[in-house]
């Protein structure tokens, strides 16, 4: 029996957890049979970290690894945040503190599987965001559609059809962070059908170009991830991170242009690792313009 420890970094952002998991896999190329996730040093965990951690935990458990959470101090504000976010309850262990309750500004970790995912988004998540942001659901139609594109990708391209969403609203700055993670095969496995022997970064960059599709379904036309970047980054000046296995790329808007920054070392395991694919979206909702319920349509081509 091999036993490993995963130390939650003091600031457990998506990038830091990605790096820490890369270290773990370098030390244990074969998956350990027991994994202790140590929360002793944790000071802060932003939303992408919550989704990453939930997804990673579920992946290890699905692979047969026994996962233990250790050094949990409910007096630690970061642990309290996770408990209030119903993270431990979602992981099947119940709340650490029975008084913990989801905060008004947090949308707890949600397992999104087809066919319920779209309904949850339309009737639960988007109304929640609408109430917090003051934007109508029509004005949030692009946000809703972009999340559906990601959920459709999970369904179309992964075998297990399972993903997690976590969101946090920051009312003082009108910012929403939405993190969606799955533990499917990752983007590269599908892209390799088109670009043999590409690395994970190449695969992410290829998959975000309009028209590039691995044709996991014959009707796929390579529009989903491109549409996400077009709307969230170029349209609403938001930031998107796409992490898939050893690749992590940040997409942001610089003077109206799409700017791509590769995190780490060109998709080598030495920089980090993510089980499956995680997509983290940050939007200042003040950048989302009001939309009317109906607009006149004209063909524009």
């Amino acid at each position: 029996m091999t036993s490993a420890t995963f130390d939650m970094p003091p600031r457990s952002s998506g990038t830091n957890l990605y790096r820490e998991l890369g270290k773990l896999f370098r030390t244990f190329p074969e998956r350990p049979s027991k994994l202790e996730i140590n929360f002793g040093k944790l000071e802060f965990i932003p939303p992408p970290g919550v989704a990453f951690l939930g997804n990673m935990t579920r992946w290890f458990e699905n692979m047969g690894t026994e996962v233990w959470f250790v050094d949990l101090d409910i007096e630690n504000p970061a642990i309290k945040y996770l408990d209030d976010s119903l993270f431990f309850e979602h992981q099947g262990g119940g709340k650490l503190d029975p008084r913990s309750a989801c905060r008004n500004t947090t949308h707890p970790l949600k397992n999104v599987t087809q066919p319920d995912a779209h309904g949850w988004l339309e009737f639960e998540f988007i109304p929640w965001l609408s109430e917090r942001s003051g934007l109508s659901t029509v004005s949030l139609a692009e946000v809703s559609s972009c999340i559906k594109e990601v959920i459709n990708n999970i369904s179309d391209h992964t075998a297990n059809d399972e993903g997690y969403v976590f969101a946090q609203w920051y009312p003082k700055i009108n910012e929403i962070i939405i993190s969606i993670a799955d533990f499917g095969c990752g983007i590269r496995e599908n892209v390799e059908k088109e670009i043999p022997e590409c690395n994970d970064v190449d695969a992410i960059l290829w998959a975000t170009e309009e028209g590039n599709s691995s044709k996991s379904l014959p009707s796929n036309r390579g529009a989903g991830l491109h549409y996400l970047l077009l709307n969230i980054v170029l349209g609403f000046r938001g930031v998107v991170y796409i992490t898939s296995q050893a690749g992590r790329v940040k997409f942001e808007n610089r003077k109206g242009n799409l700017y791509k920054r590769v995190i780490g070392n060109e998709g080598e395991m030495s920089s980090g690792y993510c089980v499956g694919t995680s997509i983290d979206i940050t939007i200042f909702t003040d950048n989302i313009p009001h939309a009317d319920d109906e607009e006149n349509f004209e063909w524009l081509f």
Partner: protein
Amino acid sequence: MAILITSLVSACDTNVQGDVVRNAIIDALKSDEKVVLDFAGVANVTSSFVNSALIALLPDYDIETIKSRIVIKRVNRQIGNMINRRFQYEARA
């Protein structure tokens, strides 16, 4: 002839839902009338839906025929932009 999208599908999220709408459009195009696609009550559409409902018409109908025979009405910003963007790309490709 008018096709109320919500009378055919509960949402416009998936390829399967797009297939249902495309089949209705193909039936309607058999007449000489214009086909009105009415999106009243549709919150948003995905690229998967638009690809299956509309872009998949392209092998059988050219773009000018689609523009002249299909009228899109009661769309919000997201739906209108998605339809136009998908056709703009396919027209260039």
